[in-house]
């Protein structure tokens, strides 16, 4: 049996040893923190090359367009509800012969509904039926903002020189075909695990992107012009005549809406497929993907 003195000495030794261990652990932790901080600082100081992609006004206008286009479509379809221009012969279930009512019913039945809801489409894809006065006020608000936004976009393209990347080129048809062939082959080649290289892209955009990004501002201009032709057919009679007549302007306006809305579907899919850098580029304006590095 150890004496009391011996026990005391042992515990004293233990205490000292554990204190030393604690101090050593603390020192190690300090050193680790310092090293991590130094590593972070070194990483932060690391040089990196970026390429400016989108001018600030272009980015602002791009994101504002998203909200405005949604607002314009929601209010515009509620205006369309009041007097649809695309109509078929009236039927018992659809006495107005409105195609959007039919589209709504088809969608409901897809989800297993009864399809006996004539306003199903307008309730979901517009601010709703019986909202003409509200929808008109909203549409004018968004329309004026949309025009201002379009001007901002063009100003950004001019200021940043981005317009040069959008102009059509002689090589575009051939390059567009190569891109189509590439897109059609992506999924089969991924499934069979065969390599499928991206066709070379000479500039900022490939020919398909260039075609789309050049056309969309023109469709935007056309949607504004046809809008004014409907809004002021008496005082801007020359503009109404440009679209043949009032109904012509309505049809062009509606078609432009479908094109602008339809464009966003492949646009969003391709941005998601292209990756984070592409999305970040439209928020921050720069990209770390330099020319010559492999295209994702």
């Amino acid at each position, binding site marked *: 049996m150890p004496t009391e003195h011996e026990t005391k000495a042992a515990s004293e030794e233990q205490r000292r040893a554990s204190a030393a261990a604690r101090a050593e652990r603390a020192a190690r932790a300090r050193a680790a923190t310092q090293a991590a901080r130094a590593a972070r600082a070194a*990483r*932060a*100081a*690391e*040089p*990196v*090359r*970026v*390429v*400016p992609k989108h001018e600030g006004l272009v980015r602002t206008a791009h*994101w504002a367009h998203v*909200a405005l286009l949604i*607002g314009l479509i929601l209010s515009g379809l509620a*205006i*369309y509800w*009041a*007097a649809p*221009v695309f109509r078929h012969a009236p039927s018992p279930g659809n006495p107005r012969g409105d195609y959007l009512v039919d589209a709504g019913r088809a969608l409901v039945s897809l989800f297993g509904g009864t399809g006996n809801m004539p306003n199903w489409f307008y*309730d979901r894809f517009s*601010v*709703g039926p*019986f*909202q*003409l*006065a*509200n*929808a*008109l*006020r*909203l549409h*004018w*608000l968004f329309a*004026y903002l949309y025009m201002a936004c379009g001007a901002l976009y063009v100003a950004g393209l001019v200021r940043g*020189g981005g317009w*040069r*990347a959008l*102009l059509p080129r002689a090589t575009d048809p051939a390059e567009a075909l190569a891109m189509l062939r590439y897109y059609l082959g992506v999924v089969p080649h991924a499934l069979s695990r065969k390599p499928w290289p991206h066709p070379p892209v000479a*500039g*900022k955009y490939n020919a398909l992107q260039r075609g789309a990004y050049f056309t969309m501002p023109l469709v935007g201009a056309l949607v504004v012009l046809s809008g004014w032709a409907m*809004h*002021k*057919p*008496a*005082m*801007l*009679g020359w503009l*109404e*005549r440009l679209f043949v*007549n*009032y*109904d012509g302007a*309505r049809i062009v306006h509606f078609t432009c809406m479908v094109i602008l809305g339809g464009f966003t579907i492949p646009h969003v899919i391709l941005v998601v497929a292209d990756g984070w850098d592409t999305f*970040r580029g439209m*928020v*921050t*304006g*720069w990209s770390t993907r*330099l*020319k010559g590095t492999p295209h994702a």
Partner: protein
Amino acid sequence: MPERAKRPPLGARLAGALRRTAEAAAERPEASRETTRGALAVRSRRDFLLFGASVVATAMAGWWLLPERTKRTWFPGTADRLDTLAARVGLTRMQREAQLNRVLTFDDDVAEALYSSHRRVRTYDRPDPRPLRNNYHGRTPGPEYLAGWRLNLSGLASGRRQSLAIDELRARFTRHDMNTRLVCVEGWSHVVAWGGMRFADLLAAYPPASGMRWAALRSNVGLDGAGNPEPYDVSIDLETARHPQALLATHHGGAPLTLAHGAPLRLVVPMKLGLKNIKAITDIAYTEAEPSDYWNERGYSKYDGL
């Protein structure tokens, strides 16, 4: 004689200009720049915070702008709570109505700036062959009022009230015919063959008192959907009333106006939306201040200029 400096031929000069234009429009090679990861992270964080804040602000403003019925349809459970949240930052329903009405006023100002009494509204060789839609808001009035119908004028320079029968009007004023498009706020339109007297001629025959800027047109025979009396009124600026294509129409499709289209006298102003083309006018009062307007009180524009 000094020899003239030889200029290159036109073809070469044009080709040169074309080449220079093409060069100016050609895409510039990608110009990358060097920075540090740290600087990039700071900028990126700032931009994404700004982006996120804008998304939240836009969503809030969007919610605030939605009509009440739409909010209840889309978010039946949470609409009230979201409304309370928006109201906390000052986005109330009253604020929304005030802002949206300012938009209408702005759009009316644009329409008024575009208006010119010298600009003719487009006319057509032939009217639309389909029958014109009867868009009476309520019930179409019966023929009882026709026998005792008179047009009452007030706010005249003479200081008296004037009451005119339809035969007097027809006998006294020249009839003008025109095929113009009636454009409804709902989106449909119709080319109609109208016939009637010029509003300008009535204004010349019974001039308004000095300082009058508006015509308040009223139909006392209007009915609501249940068949109860509901007068209809529109405000017309005298600038528009004096336009040569502003008619007080008595005929439609070559025949006297039917009850459905405002017998015996209606307004035809093709430079205004259809809802300003008041049917079965019984009173015209010239006023200094802008008079009331049936559809303006129901959320539509005041000026309605096309």
